């Protein structure tokens, strides 16, 4: 059941990512598959976070028309790093979670653009990553994306906490255990 819910979450994230930018221009700054990956990374399960990163990332590549594997690579890595960070550090606080989203968003943008540059596909990077034609513009894009992803995460994480209430409870237990230890 849990697996099915996770698969459905990834599916809806991809669906919304595909649909919404057609109607709301600013939505192209938001990366829902990344946010879902970060959410599962914060559940302290590296394996789960990586698998969500693989599927959400490759799915994102497919819908954006980019090179399959680029988004998958960055999201797998980010999912893993967030999961490891959430195990080692105290990231249960909502503000800490949002800070993680902002850092993950910036890292994802840099990784994404870096991989496209490495593969000499700058022309594709411009089409899948808006307004990244110069270094200054790229800096602005990182900033706007981080802001958009963080703002969206506030609502999305509340919704996902409701859907995955068992995992949210487990996380709360982890906070208590950490506090009493």
């Amino acid at each position, binding site marked *: 059941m849990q697996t099915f819910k996770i698969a459905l979450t990834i599916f809806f994230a991809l669906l919304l990512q595909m649909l919404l930018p057609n109607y709301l221009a600013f939505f192209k700054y938001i990366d829902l598959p990344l946010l879902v990956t970060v959410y599962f990374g914060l559940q302290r*399960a590296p394996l789960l976070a*990586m698998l969500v990163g693989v599927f959400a990332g490759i799915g994102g590549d497919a819908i954006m028309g980019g090179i399959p*594997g680029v988004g998958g690579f960055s999201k797998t890595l980010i999912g893993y790093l967030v999961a490891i960070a959430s195990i080692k550090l105290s990231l249960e606080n909502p503000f800490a979670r949002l800070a993680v989203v902002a850092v993950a968003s910036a890292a994802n943008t840099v990784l994404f653009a870096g991989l496209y540059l490495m593969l*000499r596909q700058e*022309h594709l990077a411009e089409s899948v990553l808006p307004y990244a034609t110069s270094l200054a513009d790229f800096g602005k894009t990182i900033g706007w994306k981080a802001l958009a992803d963080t703002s969206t995460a506030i609502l999305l994480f509340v919704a996902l906490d409701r859907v995955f209430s068992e995992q949210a409870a487990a996380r709360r237990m982890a906070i208590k255990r950490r506090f009493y230890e």
Partner: protein
Amino acid sequence: MSANVAQRKAHWVLAGLLLGQVVMMSYFARHPDSEQSVLRTWLMTPLSAVTQVADGIISTVTGWIAGYTDLRGARQENIELRERVEQLTGENNSLREKEAEYKVLRTQIALPQLASYTQIAANVVSRNPSLWFKRLIIDRGTADGVKLDMPVATGAGIVGRVIAVGPNFSTVQLITDKYAGAGAMLQNSREPGEVRGLGDEPYCELRSIPSTSVVEVGESVVTTGYDRIYPKGLLIGTVERLEPDPTATWHKIIIKPAAPVDRVEHVFVLLVEKKDLQVEELNR
């Protein structure tokens, strides 16, 4: 594998997943210069360099052995070759004279001069003896100015065209490959058609020649330039045989390539691009 063990081995899983995706992205990404997959460019660039070195060593060793064995008949062969050089020098002078006359005549009847192209020599470093494809790998690439669709030839005739380019290598599709084609015409009757590779044998087929046209065995077939890959007038081969079919509208003509495409070791890449041929086409 229990959940804890799985979590402990997460970094290995991460490495596997990332590696898998690197392979995936590099397979799907197309190199902007060559339009071939980046994975292939990454693999072929070092492999091609190693192949070139190995080919050089093998060629040197076989060259020594062949040089020793060839010495036995060298004196007689030398005499014959000198006679041949004399004869060819005479022919060359005669052709130069005709070429000069031809240029003057073209100018007089207001035809534009045909473009001339530079060419670079290349060694065949590998063959692809696949059942489906007939391809060669040569030791020249983008660093030498080679681009996609450039014609490859020997002194005898065309060999094929470049279908993939790396920094230090190029893949050549032979004219006998079953997916290869070229605009062609019979040299005597000037009847235009299309040459296609036969794939499973070292011959090509000349298509679209009406059965009413007179075709002679041994007649030369040259390029028309209409395909925008091969410049006009390059020798493709000679008519080997005609396969009779009284009911057919078109001749079935089998061509023997003039260049020894199956055993060629050295070739020339003609540094001619589609845009140059378009200009020539417009002029014509």
